[in-house]
């Protein structure tokens, strides 16, 4: 049998089992025996692909990050010029989060105690998001005046909000937060007037339906 990884892992019952068990019990208390029982596979089958809990959790996290990035990158690349491209990416991010709340919780909250490798994967994703925001530098009227880490600060607003949403310590719905996150992302590059236009941009119909 080939090793389970990437999309094959994400489509396998084991990935769903890992996500559910880690979300329910927390990383520390989640055990391989629970993963295999929930996925209805044997321990032998599990250990043919993974050395243990840390490896399967990291594998699932990597697979979901790769899938998320493909989707958001495709939206960004077909979104037109910046900031339209960034808005398209933000909308696709919101769709993914609404479609996969359990994956979002797994990535943003449940796997925080999962060690440095998991943290590095998450950080890598966030910095990739920051790089999409920072492509605004290419259309900025004065690129030299844009703070060097404007993209990092802007993505941080999204990341921290998401973390607190997932924890339940911040109320409000995801689509409602999009205009102000776009405002914070656009302002350093194109200025106040362009940022303010983001506040007036209508949400796509599919996301409007999720407004509470």
């Amino acid at each position, binding site marked *: 049998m080939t090793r389970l990884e990437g999309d094959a892992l994400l489509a396998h019952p084991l990935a769903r089992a890992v996500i559910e068990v880690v979300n329910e019990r927390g*990383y*520390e208390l989640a055990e391989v025996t629970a993963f295999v029982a929930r996925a209805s596979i044997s321990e032998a089958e599990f250990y043919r692909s993974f050395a243990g809990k840390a490896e399967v959790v990291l594998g699932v996290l990597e697979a979901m990050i790769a899938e998320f990035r493909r989707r958001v990158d495709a939206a960004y690349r077909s979104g037109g010029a910046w900031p339209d491209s960034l808005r398209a990416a933000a909308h696709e991010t919101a769709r993914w989060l609404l479609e996969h709340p359990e994956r979002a919780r797994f990535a943003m909250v449940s796997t*925080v*105690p*999962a*060690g*440095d490798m998991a*943290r590095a994967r998450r*950080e890598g994703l*966030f*910095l990739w998001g920051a790089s999409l925001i920072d492509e605004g530098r290419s259309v900025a009227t004065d690129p030299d005046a844009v*703070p*060097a*880490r*404007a993209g*990092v*600060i*802007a*993505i*941080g*607003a*999204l*990341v*921290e*909000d998401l*973390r*607190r949403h997932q*924890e339940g*310590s911040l109320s409000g719905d995801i689509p409602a*937060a999009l*205009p*102000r*996150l776009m*405002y*914070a992302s656009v*302002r*350093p590059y194109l200025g*106040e007037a362009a940022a*303010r236009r983001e*506040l007036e941009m209508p949400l796509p119909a599919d996301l409007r339906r999720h407004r509470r």
Partner: protein
Amino acid sequence: MARLPEHLKSAPTGREQVSREVMHEHQRDRVVARAIPIFAKRGYNATTIDDLLAAGKVGVGNFYDLFEGKEDCFLVAYERVMSQAREELEQAAADRDDWAGRTYLGLRALIDFGLAHPLEARLVLVEAQSGGDVALSRYNGLLDEALTWLRRGREENGGARALPPGFERASVSGLAFYLQQCLLEPSAHEAEELFGEVVGMILEPIIGATPLTRLRGSLAAV
């Protein structure tokens, strides 16, 4: 009735209790000081009680006399760092009573603190997120405190009232994430560069570019 000579009398009970409490606090402080770099370097979850015993040079019984367990030790460490940081921020802004000046100097002190004490800063801004529910709620409380402070800036600066709702939350979240990245990235950061960026992203939208330039000029020597 004959009285005991002075040197044979026992010390007053109250004094003895205070002395024991002081000893206890002193020992707790010592263990916490040594636990901070362990939590920061290994991460909260990877840190074991054995690591803390070895670093603090205490036995297991003694450790549990001082703390309820790992989480309690972490929370004491968190509070100790926060108390030190608050003191430094307060001192830095003590000469100003205006919101903008206090914010400017407070941000400067915050960055200086993070660069001077990277392990302590990492404990509060990074490890607190995995240090259990209480630590996480204190970390969230810290962000909410910063949020309240920035909202006060909107109230005191007429121009900032036009900022969109949620601007302060985005600023605080962005700042927290940015500082975390600086702490996780081992490369050296220049205080001036970091400070310039943070002030430009957080303070300038609230007070405006011209007042910020004036403020920079008036506080340049600070």
